[in-house]
C-alpha cells in the first residue's frame, strides 16, 4: 500500500506524525491499564492472561518513541492532498446504512449507501442514483435471502415482496 510513497526531502518536524506517536502511546497506556486489572487465575503457566498484553503495550510504547523520533527528523513520506468532501460522502453513506438497516431493511439502507458512494465519485444526481441503488439491492436481497437462504434484515420493501 505504501509502495509509491515518496520520502520527504525537507527535514522538518511532522505534526501529524507526532499525532500518531501520541496515539500509539495512548493505546499502550490503555492496554497496560486493562492488563493490570486482570487476575492471575490459578495456572501452571508463568505466562498468564496479562503477560502478552503487557509485552505488546511495552512494544507499542517503544514504537511510539521511535515514531516521535522519526517525526522530528521528518522521516515520514510526503502526503498527497486529501479531499475531505468525497470522504464525507462515503462515511455518511456507511453511517446512514448502519442507522437504517434494522428499520428500513437491507435494500433501502444499502441502496442509500450505493447512491452516496456514487456521489462521492461525482455522480451527484441522488434522485436517480437512490432508486437505482435500492432496486439493485432489492435484486441482491432476492437472490441471496430468497434463494440462497442468507439472513439479511427485511424492511417494508422486502415484506411487500414476501407477501
Amino acid at each position, binding site marked *: *500500500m*505504501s*509502495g509509491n*510513497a515518496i520520502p520527504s526531502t525537507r527535514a522538518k518536524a511532522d505534526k501529524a506524525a507526532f499525532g*500518531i506517536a501520541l496515539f500509539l502511546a495512548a*493505546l499502550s497506556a490503555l*492496554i497496560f491499564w*486493562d492488563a493490570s486489572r*486482570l487476575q492471575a*487465575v490459578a*495456572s*501452571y*503457566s*508463568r505466562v498468564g*492472561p496479562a503477560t*502478552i*498484553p503487557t509485552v*505488546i503495550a511495552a*512494544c*507499542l510504547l517503544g*514504537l511510539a518513541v*521511535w515514531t516521535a523520533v522519526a517525526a522530528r527528523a521528518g522521516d*515520514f*513520506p510526503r*502526503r*498527497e*492532498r*486529501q*479531499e475531505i*468532501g*468525497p*470522504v464525507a*460522502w*462515503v*462515511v455518511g453513506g*456507511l453511517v446512514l446504512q*448502519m442507522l437504517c*438497516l434494522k428499520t428500513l431493511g*437491507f435494500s433501502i439502507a*444499502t441502496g442509500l*449507501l*450505493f*447512491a452516496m*458512494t*456514487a*456521489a*462521492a*465519485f*461525482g*455522480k451527484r444526481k441522488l434522485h436517480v*442514483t437512490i432508486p437505482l*441503488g435500492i432496486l*439493485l439491492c432489492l435484486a441482491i436481497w432476492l437472490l*441471496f435471502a430468497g434463494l*440462497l*437462504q*442468507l*439472513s*439479511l*434484515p427485511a424492511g417494508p420493501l422486502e415484506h411487500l415482496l414476501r407477501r
Partner: protein
Amino acid sequence: MSTFDFLLQGLLVAMQPMNLIYALIGVTLGTAVGVLPGIGPALTVALLLPVTYRLDPGGSLIMFAGIYYGGMYGGSTTSILLNTPGESSSIVTALEGNKMARAGRGGPALATAAIGSFVAGLIATIGLAFIAPAIVKLALVFGPREYFALMVLAFVTVSSAFGDSTLRGLTSLFLGFALAIIGIDQLTGQTRMSFGVPDLLDGVEVTTLAVAMFAIGETLYIAAQGEQGPDKVEAVRGSVWMTGQDWARSWKPWLRGTVIGFPIGAMPAGGAEIGTFLSYATEKRLTKHPEEFGHGAIEGVAGPEAANNASAAGTLVPLLTLGLPTTATAAIMLAGFQQYGLQPGPLLFATNPQLVWGLIASLLIANFMLLVLNLPLVGLWVKLLTIPRPWLYAGILTFATLGTIGANPSVFELGMLLAFGLMGYLMRVFGYPIAPVVVGLILGPLAEQQLRRALAISQGDPSVLFTSPIAAVLLAIAALALIVPAVLRARGKGQVLSQLAASED
C-alpha cells in the same frame, strides 16, 4: 477391491451426466455465496447444505463437494479484482493480485489463481487418497510447542509484507496484536480490552477487519484523491490469457504452494491462512523478479492460491482418517456426512470405502468443474474493472457490507467496519502497510495460546519450547531466515545475495 478400483468406481459414478450437472450447480452456488466478503466456506456450506438434502446420496455428495471447493475458491476473484478478500485465506492473494489487476494484468492473475487452485486441488486430493495416514501421523505429533514454533516462523515471514519501512511495518503488526487482545481470553475465560461491551467479547472478526481495511479503506483513499486521482483502470494490457512467461513463472509456485498448504491444512490448529503466508514469503525469497513484489508479481498470486486450495483438501485428512473436524467448515461437513449414515472416524476407510472414494472422486470432479466454470469467465470478470469509478466503488461497498451483514446482521459489526475502514484510510495516507495488521490479528492469538498451553503443560518450564525436535528445527529455520539476510546484507557481496537482502524489508 484395491484402492484404485474404488477410486475408478467412484469416478465412474461421479462422471454420469446428471452428476456432472450437480457438480456444476454445486460449484456455481458455492462460488456465488463464497465470493461474498466475510462469508467464508463454513457459512457457505452451512447455508447450502439443505439444498443437497433433496438429492439422492450420490448426487448430493457430489454437489456438496462442489459447494465446498466453490466456497474455498470464491474469495480469490474479489481479492484480485476488487481488493476485497472474500475470506481470511485469500488476504495474501489481494496483495499482488490486485496490483496485477490495476496494471491491466487481471486476466493472467485470475487465470493463475484458477489453474493454480486446480493443480493444487488435484494433487492434494490425490494426496488425500494415498498418503492421508502418513500425513495425519505428522499432524498429531504437533502439540502446543510445535505450533508455537510454527507461529514464530510465520511471524518472521510477515516481514516480507512490511513494505519499505521497518518502523511502519512493525507499527502495523503491533496494531494487529493490540486488536487481537480484545475479547475473552480463551485459556482463563477473562475478558480483555472489552470495557464491558458485550459485542467486543468475541473479539474482532478477521474478515471484518480485512474487508474494512482493504475495501473500505481503499475506497476512501481513492475518493480522497478527488479528480486528480488515477484515471480509469486499464482493464487489459497485453493478453487476457497467461503468456508463456506467466506459465514459466507460475508452475513452480503452484507446486511449492501445494507442498506447503497441504500438510498445514491437515494440522488440527494449522489453518489455511498460515499456509498462504508461508507460501508468499517463500515465493518472495525465491523469485527472480523481487523488484515486482509489491507491484504485482504473478508468483505472489500463484503460490498462495495453490496453498489455499491444497489446505482445503488437507482439512479433510484428519476428518476422514480420524473423524477430527479441525475447522468450522469441517465440523459442518461432519454434519453433512451424517445424513449419508457416514460416521467419520478411524475406521471409515475400512468400513465405508464406497462413500469415501465416492467423496474423493467427487472432489476431483468438483475441482475440474471449478476450472471449467472459472476460466471462461476470466474475460468477463476483468470487464468489471472497466465499470466507471462511481459505479465500481458503489458496487464494492454494497458488496463488502452485504457480506458483513449476511454473516452477522448487527449494527455494531457495521460500526466496526466503518471504524476500521477509516483506520485503513488513515494508514494509507501515512504510508503504513495494511497486511501486517490483519496478519497480527490472525497469528497473535494463535501464538499466545499455544505458548501458554505449552508452558502450562510443562508446569512453567520454558525449556520444553526448544527440546522437541520439530519445534527446534522450526525455530532454527526462523532464526536463519532472520539472521542470514542480515549477515549477507552486512557483507554486501554478490548480486544474488544483495537481492536476497533487499527482499528482507
